[in-house]
């Protein structure tokens, strides 16, 4: 089960968007509905086909925004795109929003409760900090669990960072559940997402590859391989690589073999699960359901299961275990069967009682 959580997708009218940027303000509003023409969808399909051929099962389409999210002008390009893509059984397609933070975003970039409705449809939110103050914003404030947590911190690896990354910031972010992302496109020297290049968060050239190795090694050293995920960030088809090849590449950064494997399998998996908590209140993964079996009296075990499940998931939030399938499953995969759930809940109740 391999994850590629960064497949950049462009706004279909990207070139016209550039022109309208130059004359600020008085332009007509961009249309709220964005449709991709069949030709543009046909351009994206082969990339997904290749990803499937190489062995990726979970893919996240990525929309990148520069500096700040402006509520009035923001268009969710992924909603319609996902519906227009042909159905692929066994593949999960997620939606991700990336915000590139620069000097101007230090005052605020729209990730506030007031704009919560804009962020709700996205499964993942990522930040690309380019200065030390935005990095501390991303690590400290925005990794706190809430409906607007930015779970992914993707440092711009191809730039020469003029600031030193502090270990305490990284540690706090990891403790709160955020992950640091490494995009392997930088090592190949391939074409980067144009929005990133415009925002000055990515480069391709001789020095870009050297910066990639330096910064990626630094990130690996600081995270010690724990909260690390690897993704593509690949725009051109020819730069895609198979997941085991990518794992091997990460090993060359000084990461142990098992940590490298975790970075493309279990780390993104638990990240996606954790990101689901954004859709719930205060990281309680499931709405408590009162189940009264037919023909029996309402016993204490039944009425107390909601609180047990909430306290369990609270403590499990930071370390979601593989066994907690009943509550922690990705919704698309369907729920586990009734009897299994009931027996698991009973076991938890026993453990909770013994614990007290």
């Amino acid at each position: 089960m391999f994850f590629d959580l960064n497949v950049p997708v462009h706004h279909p009218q990207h070139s016209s968007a550039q022109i309208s940027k130059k004359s600020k303000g008085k332009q007509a509003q961009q249309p709220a509905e964005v449709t991709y023409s069949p030709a543009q969808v046909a351009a994206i399909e082969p990339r997904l086909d290749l990803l499937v051929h190489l062995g990726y099962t979970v893919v996240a389409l990525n929309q990148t925004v520069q500096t700040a999210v402006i509520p009035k002008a923001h268009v969710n390009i992924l909603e319609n795109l996902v519906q227009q893509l042909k159905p692929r059984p066994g593949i999960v397609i997620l939606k991700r929003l990336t915000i590139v933070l620069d000097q101007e975003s230090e005052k605020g970039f729209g990730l506030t409760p007031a704009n919560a409705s804009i962020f709700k449809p996205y499964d993942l939110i990522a930040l690309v900090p380019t200065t030390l103050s935005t990095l501390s914003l991303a690590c400290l404030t925005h990794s706190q669990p809430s409906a607007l947590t930015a779970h992914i911190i993707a440092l711009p690896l191809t730039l020469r960072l003029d600031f030193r990354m502090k270990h305490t910031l990284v540690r706090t972010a990891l403790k709160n559940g955020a992950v640091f992302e490494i995009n392997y496109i930088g090592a190949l020297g391939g074409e980067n997402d144009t929005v990133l290049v415009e925002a000055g968060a990515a480069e391709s050239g001789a020095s870009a590859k050297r910066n990639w190795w330096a910064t990626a090694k630094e990130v690996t050293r600081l995270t010690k391989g724990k909260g690390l995920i690897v993704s593509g960030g690949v725009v051109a088809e020819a730069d895609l690589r198979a997941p085991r090849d990518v794992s091997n590449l990460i090993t060359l950064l000084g990461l142990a073999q098992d940590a490298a494997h975790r970075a493309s399998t279990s780390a993104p998996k638990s990240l996606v699960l954790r990101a689901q908590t954004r859709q719930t209140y205060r990281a309680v993964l499931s709405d408590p359901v009162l189940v009264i079996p037919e023909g029996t009296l309402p016993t204490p075990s039944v009425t107390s299961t909601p609180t047990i499940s909430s306290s369990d998931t609270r403590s499990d939030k930071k370390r979601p275990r593989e066994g907690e399938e009943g509550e922690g499953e990705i919704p698309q995969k369907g729920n586990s069967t009734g009897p299994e759930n009931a027996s698991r809940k009973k076991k938890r109740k026993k453990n909770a009682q013994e614990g007290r």
Partner: protein
Amino acid sequence: MVRFKNRWLLVEFIPTSNGSATQLDGYKIWEAVRQSVLNNFGDVGWGSIGLSINVKYYSPTTNICIIRVARDHHRIAWGAVTLLTAIEGTRYIPNVVHVSGTIKQTQLAAISHNREVIARFRAQAKTSSAYKDSYEEYLKTSAMEIEALHD
């Protein structure tokens, strides 16, 4: 016992739809890997694997290649293969299908990979299963060539 250990990489070169794909052969692949090692890992990298790297087999029909490297620094060679972007001007995606320590496992993996690729070709061509096409012949000859590989 100080035995010289190897790693056998089974690599599939997926051509991207970039116009004409020139016919590859073992030497061109070796040259491309050499350039990739020199560019990405320098003289140190090439020194570690240069004497032991060998392209043992290449099949143009299924784009499959078998490379043998010494075990100690095979990750450098593997990384260099991953970081390869183009051979002789045409862009390829190198996909390492299987890595093993013995030639036997590589042979088995190569034969089953060939069969999968031929099955895919046949499914695309939508011919009936009774139709005897040239792939049958290819499967036999390639299986013989692969079995004939030795250390």
